């Protein structure tokens, strides 16, 4: 599970007994969805691959940056020598055209960048979005106006154009993956804030929140003890859907040449370089594109599963966790 989700859960960790049973119920409902379980396993595997990238490349005996000019056919534009793009015992997924760099090493190292940037950006988006959203809903009318207008502006900003502008002005010495994560995270938190504000306004009217406020709790304590548990469902759901969006954003930025810089591999960058090779060396495009597709699909399915598990109405259709569903079914 993503850092973002963990963070949101941690924020509502010391919730009371009913909430704990809610968590158990959530797990039960999630487990009931086979697609979501498969997706979760795929995501876990990808994260593991990303974390273990240096080990995996060491196991293969290659690294992502060394050139192997002898493995490409210079007279034919640098197409890899051998069948299937030069797949061999030394180079598990073959080599990159023109350079002869090892594709497996670049793919798993690229996973670190792509997944790392996406998860970090999501975490930033959730942290900012929840803070702004709760503050807007709980604060004075004046504060709400200001924060809501700021949120509107942020939502209206076109992500790619803003990111292009920001990435172009920051000095090259700044570590690029961190920068890309920051830029995506700082630009695209608007929708999280909107969802959180709306949800908080609903929660605010509930008895237990009103009671907490009347008993003289401070705003922070109310937010932490009474609001965050109620916000967890929509926020986790949305975060699970943000991760694939952010992977795509990083890929697009690298595609446009302002993402991570060579020779650091990222999936987006590999796809950029490979798009012209789709006929001459198809595997060069297929591996990174396939990895990106699998990741985005898995996270989307998982996000959908999380939403279903947290949404009582959807959960009722799963026939898990509510007695009511079965009765209605029988009727």
């Amino acid at each position, binding site marked *: 599970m993503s850092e973002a989700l963990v963070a949101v859960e941690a924020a509502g960790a010391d919730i009371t007994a009913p909430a704990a049973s809610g968590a158990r119920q959530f797990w039960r409902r999630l487990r009931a969805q086979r697609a979501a379980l498969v997706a979760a396993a795929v995501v876990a595997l990808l994260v593991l691959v990303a974390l273990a990238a240096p080990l995996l490349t060491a196991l293969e005996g290659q690294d992502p940056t060394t050139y192997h*000019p002898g493995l490409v056919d210079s007279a*034919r*534009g640098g197409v890899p020598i051998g069948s299937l793009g030069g797949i061999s015992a030394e180079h598990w997924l073959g080599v990159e055209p023109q*350079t002869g760099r090892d594709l497996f090493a670049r793919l798993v190292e690229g996973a670190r960048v792509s997944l790392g940037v996406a998860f970090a950006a999501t975490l930033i988006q959730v942290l900012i979005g929840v803070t702004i959203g709760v503050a807007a809903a709980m604060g004075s009318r004046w504060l709400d106006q200001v924060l809501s207008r700021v949120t509107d502006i942020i939502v209206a900003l076109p992500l790619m154009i803003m990111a292009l502008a920001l990435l172009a002005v920051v000095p*090259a010495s700044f570590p690029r993956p961190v920068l890309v994560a920051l830029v995506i995270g700082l630009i695209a938190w608007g929708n999280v804030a909107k969802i959180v504000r709306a949800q908080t306004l609903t929660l605010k009217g509930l008895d237990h929140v009103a009671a907490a406020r009347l008993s003289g709790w401070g705003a922070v304590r109310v937010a932490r003890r009474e609001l965050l548990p109620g916000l967890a469902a929509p926020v986790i759901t949305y975060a699970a859907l943000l991760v694939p969006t952010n992977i795509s954003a990083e890929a697009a930025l690298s595609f446009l040449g302002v993402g991570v810089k060579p020779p650091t591999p990222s999936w987006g960058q590999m796809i950029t370089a490979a798009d012209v090779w789709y006929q001459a060396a198809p595997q060069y495009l297929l591996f990174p594109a396939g990895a990106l597709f699998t990741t985005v699909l898995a996270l989307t399915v998982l996000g959908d599963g999380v939403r279903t598990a947290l949404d009582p109405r959807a959960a009722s259709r799963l026939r898990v966790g509510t007695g009511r569903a079965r009765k209605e079914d029988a009727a």
Partner: protein
Amino acid sequence: MRQSSVIARRVAAASVGLVVAAGAAACGPEDNDAKGAGGDSTPHKGGTLTVLNAEAQTDFDPARLYTSGGGNVPSLVFRTLTTRNRENGAEGAKVVPDLATDTGRPNKDATVWTYTLKKGLKYEDGTPITSADIKYGIERSFAPELSGGAPYLRDWLSGAADYQGPYKDKKGLSAIATPDARTIVFHLNKPEGEFPFLATQTQFTPVPKSKDTGTKYEQHPVSSGPYRVVKNQNDGERVLLERNPHWSGDDERKAYPDKVDVRSGLDSSVINQRLAASQGADKAAVTTDTNLGPAELARVSGDKSLAARVGTGHFGYTNYIAFNPKVKPFDDPKVRQAISYAVDRSSVINAAGGSALAEPATTFLPDQKSFGYTPHDLFPAGKSGNAAKAKELLKEAGHPNGLTVTLTHSNSKDFETSPEIATALQDALKKAGITVRLQGLEDNDYRDKIHSIKTEPGFFLAHWGADWPSGGPFLAPIFDGRQIVKDGANFNTGLLDDKSVNTEIDAINKLTDLNAAAARWGALDKKIAGQALVVPLFHPVYKRLYGSDVKNIVISDWTGVLDISQVAVK
């Protein structure tokens, strides 16, 4: 040289790039025979030639065009005093007469050049072409509203530095005399043995004063060549040419097709797809500006019928590493030499598209006779770099534990100065103990930075192409100390100001024997190479597809490009 002209030269460099891009589809005569599968390979008149291009044929006014040798499409409409020889290879790098009877008669020190026009020359409306029209055409190119041409005329013609063109200054240019309707005399402010090369540019096209419509002239320029402009849409996006009935005939342009239809604004991959498929009208199609990329080449080379339809051309061009000796540690010649030894030209060439699209370069001059190419390799790196020798030099230079340097390059996708070449060099220098940090800049930013001595980085990727195939325009802008520009666009990036180099440049410019001049440019190239201010990397090669009905492919070393005036589609 003045600042203004050097700024113009910067545009020149860009235009040369375009000309290059406008370039090549060559093949030897044997290829013509090989591909004659569809029938006989003798060219016949008739048909419509389609030109599929990426860049539009903008500013179609002879005053505004910046061309090498008169351009490809422009040369179908505009005849000039001299022109390039329409032959394959090195023969095509020679100047030949066009409107004039010879390539020019110089006085003793090459400061006065006299031309006589051929008899019976006519415009598309049947009126005669006179020497006064050529003078007027040149004068127009000085008008600020018709800018865009090369800076040479302003630099070379006596008293022309501040001339503002015929619209503002009715007296005209005193440096050009027209004693009679067929004679024109040019007075230069310094000896220029290469004036015949300059006279190939479209500014030497006759323009009838009575038909001049100023900035609107580009809509319908009056033709002196085999074709006239019938349609010009969206500033050259589509240009339709039909036969000029009053064309006087000339020795250079074959003009086989009845019509030439230039369609631009196409994506390069679309152009190559269409030429590969060669369906319908695309059978009779060529491109003058789109190369096969490495991936496309990989595909084409695996298909015999496609490979037979690829033309190969060489344009005089060099891609190189440039050093700024004012920036440490590149002030130390040993460090520059160490890098010269350490480069891996094989991996750089692979990054540029492989051995079919680039040839290794150890000389700054292109590997062509007309440039005075004299082979030398002062810091032999072999095929894949001499890391041991580089380490040794670094040790002598006081860097026994290696060195960390920053390599600046452009982020643009073209292969010339791209991140791919920078990363290939990064990998090669690592073996010599040199850690390379990459600084990729947005393309415009990169160009501004490397061409200003205030911001010039120490170690960067660069490229250079000449306005005509000779050592002069290739070496002088880069190595002449008097061309260092303090404020503005500077091309002498090595900041070389060596008296002996400067005087030799002046001496060669006086020569009107181009063969003798070429030999001395070659020797000068070797002499300058000893300073290790640049590391030549490769000379690009152009590979271009053409349609299955296209015949009579001629690609000269002047342009590296299939010459449209020669092709037939019947």
